[in-house]
């Protein structure tokens, strides 16, 4: 962890020792130095009164610019607390309790955490209570405790757009992309929800351009959020290039744009914890990727960041079982892009039983089917990836493989050389990379064959398998390749993954989206 970067203290124009409040005449008043008897921490009030908007008040435009659409702590705000509070008294600022409590159940208002184990009771020097509580779940965004107000802008916000067509892009969409693009645009206009189910390599980013253009031209605020920082880093420059006149904020842990307010925001979902009723359109990329699905607070963050009336676009190549069902039952609006942009069908995985491979490994042997598969690739100099269910197995296999070819490399999530090894693979200095599921998404090599050893492992869910198969045949130059699941007992996930891929190919063919 880096030492904390520049932090705004409560403006040091007055000495602040404490943070307690009173409510009198339906107005909340903070006490920063002395603590009168009737004063309390903010979360112990039933409700926080909100004064009506005084339209004649001359508010601070800088504060408006800084705060609108956000939910921040006083510590995050580089404005004197007196000034902030004056805005509250005139109805321009909303205070919310950092923590709410109902029947002994605490909830963090910022991240939605309700897990008791992630709340800590402590003697707090700020509110001077013996039993204050803070949330550990979102601690890294600055500590929310029971005595912390969450501060938002409740005054007017300027929305204007003089740019009728901010999109500067002359590419063309494939017929499959075009159809999805039209649907996205419609959802943005109608403020509805839409799932774009696009196969790996469909070119889903381009599908967003028209929809974003429509939103921006209407003065709407757009956010593209994703669980994965790599995606943020990749999308940032791409969108800046096609919307050259639009300020774009790129947000991730430690990014410099933290306080930049822009019509177009690209962020890790985590960063949405600082937003409150901000966006007219939220596009959620790779909804099915970790940690979004596993972490309730991220889903809460997405909900909180949307305006009450707003559109929501979900993007994924691999929706989970429930979502697939909802689609088929008509409970969820969706559009598919069943074909890749290069209009070749998706490579279909072959299943190959390879016996008790773990037992073989104990004797430092690989199943011969696997060895054959690898040897063939090495001989013909076709690069390949081999996936393993975990690091231990992978580490066991590396020395065996290096006897075949010493240049083979392995890479896993915490590997410090991860980037350079992937680069070596790109530069064709490495004939084969063996890996855990971390290379399951995002990373693409133009011309590789792919295999999994131990495809029956629980870690290889239907979507993981579809994603892994999706690494093959990505470039127009090399649109096909081999994908093999080596297994010791076929699983339902494997069958479903193959079925999903076959279905997409079939649908694409029917719709005339495959040309080869």
């Amino acid at each position, binding site marked *: *962890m880096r*030492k*904390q970067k520049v932090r705004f*203290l*409560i403006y*040091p124009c007055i*000495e*602040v*020792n*404490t*943070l307690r409040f009173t409510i009198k005449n339906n107005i909340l008043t903070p006490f920063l130095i002395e603590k009168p008897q009737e004063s309390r921490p903010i979360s112990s009030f039933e409700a926080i009164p909100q004064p009506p908007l005084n339209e004649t008040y001359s508010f601070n435009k800088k504060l408006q610019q800084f705060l609108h659409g956000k939910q921040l702590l006083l*510590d995050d705000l580089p404005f004197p607390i007196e000034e902030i509070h004056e805005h509250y008294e005139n109805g321009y600022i909303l205070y919310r309790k950092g923590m709410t409590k109902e029947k002994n159940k605490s909830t963090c208002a910022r991240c939605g955490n309700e897990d008791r*184990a992630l709340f*800590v009771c*402590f*003697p*707090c*020097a*700020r509110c001077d209570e013996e039993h*204050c509580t*803070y949330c*550990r779940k979102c*601690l*890294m965004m600055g*500590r929310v*405790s029971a005595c912390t107000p969450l501060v938002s802008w409740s005054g007017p916000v300027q929305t204007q757009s003089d740019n009728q067509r901010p999109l500067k892009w002359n590419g063309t969409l494939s017929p499959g992309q075009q159809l999805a693009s039209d649907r996205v645009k419609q959802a943005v206009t109608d403020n509805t929800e839409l799932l774009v189910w696009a196969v790996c390599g469909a070119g889903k980013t381009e599908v967003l351009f028209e929809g974003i253009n429509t939103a921006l031209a209407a003065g709407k605020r757009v956010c593209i959020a994703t669980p994965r920082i790599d995606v943020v880093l990749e999308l940032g420059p791409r969108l800046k290039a096609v919307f050259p006149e639009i300020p774009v904020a790129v947000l991730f842990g430690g990014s410099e744009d933290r306080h930049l307010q822009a019509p177009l925001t690209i962020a890790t979902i985590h960063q949405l914890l600082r937003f409150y009723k901000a966006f007219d359109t939220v596009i959620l990329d790779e909804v099915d990727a970790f940690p979004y699905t596993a972490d309730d607070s991220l889903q809460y963050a997405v909900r909180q960041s949307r305006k009450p009336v707003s559109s929501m676009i979900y993007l994924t190549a691999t929706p989970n079982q429930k979502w697939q069902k909802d689609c088929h039952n008509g409970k969820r609006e969706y559009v598919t892009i069943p074909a890749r942009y290069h209009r070749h069908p998706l490579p279909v995985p072959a299943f190959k039983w390879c016996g008790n491979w773990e037992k073989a490994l104990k004797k430092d042997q690989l199943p011969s089917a696997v060895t054959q598969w690898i040897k063939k690739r090495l001989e013909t100099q076709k690069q390949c990836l081999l996936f393993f269910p975990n690091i231990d197995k992978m580490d066991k296999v590396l020395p065996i493989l290096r006897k075949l070819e010493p240049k083979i490399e392995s890479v896993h999530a915490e590997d410090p050389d991860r980037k350079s090894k992937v680069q070596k693979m790109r530069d064709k200095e490495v004939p084969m990379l063996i890996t855990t599921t971390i290379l399951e998404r995002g990373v693409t090599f133009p011309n590789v064959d792919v295999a999994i050893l131990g495809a029956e492992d629980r870690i290889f869910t239907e979507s993981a398998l579809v994603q892994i198969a999706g690494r093959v045949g990505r470039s127009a130059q090399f649109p096909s390749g081999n994908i093999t699941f080596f297994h010791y007992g076929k699983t339902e996930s494997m069958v479903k993954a193959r079925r999903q891929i076959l279905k997409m190919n079939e649908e694409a063919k029917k719709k005339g989206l495959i040309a080869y």
Partner: protein
Amino acid sequence: MLIKCLICHQEISPVVTWSSLWSKPEENDLCKKCSEKLNFIEGEACEKCSRPFSGLDPRYRTGNLCHDCTRWNEDPEWGSSLERNQSLFLYDDFLKEAIARYKFRGDYILARAFSPFIKSKLQTLDFDLLVPIPLSSERLYERGFNQSAALIREAGFTAAEMLKRTHAEKQSKKARNERIHLQQVFQRIADHDAENKKIILIDDIYTTGSTLYHAAKILKEAGAASVCSLTIAR
């Protein structure tokens, strides 16, 4: 209920049994992995400040003292104020991150990750009062707690708040000598009597020692019989 590791949030498997080494407690709220990452200061070390000698250039060692302590001892005004410092763990990257989270992010509960170790160490020491190194009021407001006082409290003792800051505590990058001769950093609060008391100062990290020497000097001037210190990291 499942117990989760205070540092890494992994569930704790309750099989951890400790060797009978001096300050390793019977149980704590850390998983095996994190416990093992805590690097106890063991083996040869400076007898005044616990700085380990292994890995230290022999030029910086005089007998059983490190170079810094030799210099402190040469100073008649300062040398005898702090009798001895003991530290539990090496201040390596793992501990750096944990302490940063504790202090700068204000994750109070991490006091409980360390307090069992402090507690068992204190059981081997003779003292009358445990005095935390104080924070300035700005820092205290910002953090919401004093990290030294929290360690004492979570170890099950009462903190004797005998000192307060007179200056903002920015650790400047000035040379050690300049820093020593700064004016008073601390002031005594008259509530507790230091007269003839054996005092242990508690802090999170021993870096140059100057903070602890400053505190010790004031307490000695107030009549303390002895002042030692105990920190988590060195």
